[in-house]
């Protein structure tokens, strides 16, 4: 068979036309290539957060707080004013900022090691005070940036570089359901657990983030959004396998859905 090149049949110039444009990247993301591993959920979580700000028309009034961890460079990709906080301290930094700018929007974007290990104190107390901020918590059960060590949310029996024989809950403690903990605190208005591994879940997660910022607009207090995500590099799987593993192992322990809304617990 004769070689037929695709570009001979379909001319790209015929496709890239204004009238054919059905999707574009939000202006709230920079053009910088993201540093996340291909297949990781962080990029999607970044995008839907930035889309929400644009759709609500609050980009110019929003300041984000980046953590230490895989998303330490969030400020390279999010095209808004940003501060980078010390490991675990983002809720305190956000508190300090929000208290002097009560009419601006402030959110933190943190991973599990940052939020649920070294920053547990800052997380609990910001939630307990009901700081009028949004916390976006990406839980992939591992320290991705430092090379796959055990996190507070690592599942029982899960192998990581610092639990090479699996997490032994007898000696290493059980995985911490920090989201259920903060749901019990009076200051949290809205607490939910989402994922971004399917188109449907991305839509639900984005809706949750929108609701969180609407809560901040209405000065209701703290909204806490956990996004259970894969870490295909840290879990040493392909992106597809990691999402399947996440559904089969992470979701039974970290079930998706709203935990608290309008200050009322929805689950026991």
């Amino acid at each position, binding site marked *: 068979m004769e070689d037929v090149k695709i570009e001979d049949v379909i001319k790209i110039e015929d496709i890239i036309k204004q009238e054919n444009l059905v999707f574009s990247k939000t202006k709230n993301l920079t053009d910088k290539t993201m540093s996340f591993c291909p297949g990781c959920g962080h990029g999607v979580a970044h995008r839907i957060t930035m889309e929400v700000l644009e759709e609500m028309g609050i980009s110019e009034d929003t*300041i984000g707080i980046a953590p230490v961890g895989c998303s330490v460079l969030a400020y390279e990709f999010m095209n808004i004013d940003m501060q980078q906080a010390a490991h675990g*301290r983002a809720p*305190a930094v956000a508190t300090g*900022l929000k*208290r002097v700018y009560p009419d601006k929007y402030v959110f933190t974007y943190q991973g599990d090691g940052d939020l649920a290990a070294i920053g547990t104190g800052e997380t609990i107390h910001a939630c307990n005070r009901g700081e009028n901020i949004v916390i976006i918590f990406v839980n992939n059960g591992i320290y991705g940036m430092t090379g796959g060590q055990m996190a507070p949310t690592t599942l029982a029996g899960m192998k990581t570089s610092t639990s090479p024989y699996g997490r032994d809950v007898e000696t290493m403690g059980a995985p911490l359901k920090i989201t259920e903990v903060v749901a019990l605190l009076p200051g949290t208005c809205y607490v939910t657990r989402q994922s971004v591994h399917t188109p449907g879940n991305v839509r639900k997660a984005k809706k949750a983030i929108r609701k969180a910022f609407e809560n901040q607009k209405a000065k209701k207090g703290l909204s806490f959004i956990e996004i259970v995500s894969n870490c295909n590099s840290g879990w040493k799987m392909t992106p597809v396998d990691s999402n399947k593993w996440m559904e089969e192992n992470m979701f039974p322990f970290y079930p998706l859905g709203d935990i608290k809304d309008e200050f009322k617990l929805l689950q026991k």
Partner: protein
Amino acid sequence: MGELRLMKGNEAIAEAAIRSGVDAYYGYPITPQSEILEYLMSEEPYKRTGMVVLQAESEIASVNMVYGAGAGGKKAMTTSSSPGISLMQEGLSYIAGAEIPCLIVNVVRGGPGLGTIQPSQSDYFQTTKGGGHGDYRLIALAPASVQEMSDFVKLGFELAFKYRNPVMLQADGVIGQMMEKVELFDQMPRLTDQEIIAKYPWATTGKPKSRERNIITSLDLEALKQEEFNLHLQRKYKEVTENETRYELVNCEDAEYLLVAYGSSARISLKTVQLAREKGLKVGLVRPITLWPFPSKIISELADKVKGMLCVEMSAGQMIEDVILATLGKTKVLHYGRLGGVIPSPDEVLVALETQIIGGK
């Protein structure tokens, strides 16, 4: 003349904070400085000026709240005492690295560890030599009176914003707890958000379409860029050293012997100078007001003229290292100090001066 009041040093700090137009105070209780938070909570400055006062869950949280507000261009401060200041070192390093202007007050107590609640000056190394990680400097002011507790809050913020650098006001338990007459300065207005945007274009106030986004961070993973940033810091520190070194000289013109002391030790040494002069001894006092930048130049010049210097500190001898570096062996430099919260008397300083410096070999 401003309003006169009899106040504790700690209260003077709190009142000066309100009058300086501070936007936010974040703090955590610790003796001997809890009166600052107590005074602010009872004064309700949010009603007077709109100033935020919040009790944090820890000193770690306090200093990071200061980071957040300061990065937004607001005047933010915290206060603590030695063990709490140790907890803040991480935050101070980040604040210095992100070039956030702010004021930190340390009402020093004796250490190490939980130590004692009694006054001390044993945090000099921590204040002037780092404390946190990395090549950074705090501008360090050392008040020696309740008046200066008030005045240095205002001065501290001026320097912090002039150089985009954290300022440490290092007092001690004596000055924090003692009462003196203070002339308070008049109420200064807090800056409006629009004024902050105009004055501090680097602040994270929300990105309008008219400018690039503002990023407050201390991170740069590229070694050459990080080196360039560090060199920028060093250039700034050089400028601060040239412009902001402050000290006080007492009876130094004809002095044959000098006491070198700051803070409460300087107050005690001032009396020693008087006692020595009554005995016909030509003794003077050099009082560093900025612990960093240290007044090395004047101490070096004086070292050419005198027969010896005695460094008086409520520590095992920390500032003396800077005096030795400044004098480079040109004159005898010895230390006299009391430790662990004990305050030396003017008489015992005089005995030390007479036996170690004047009569000693």
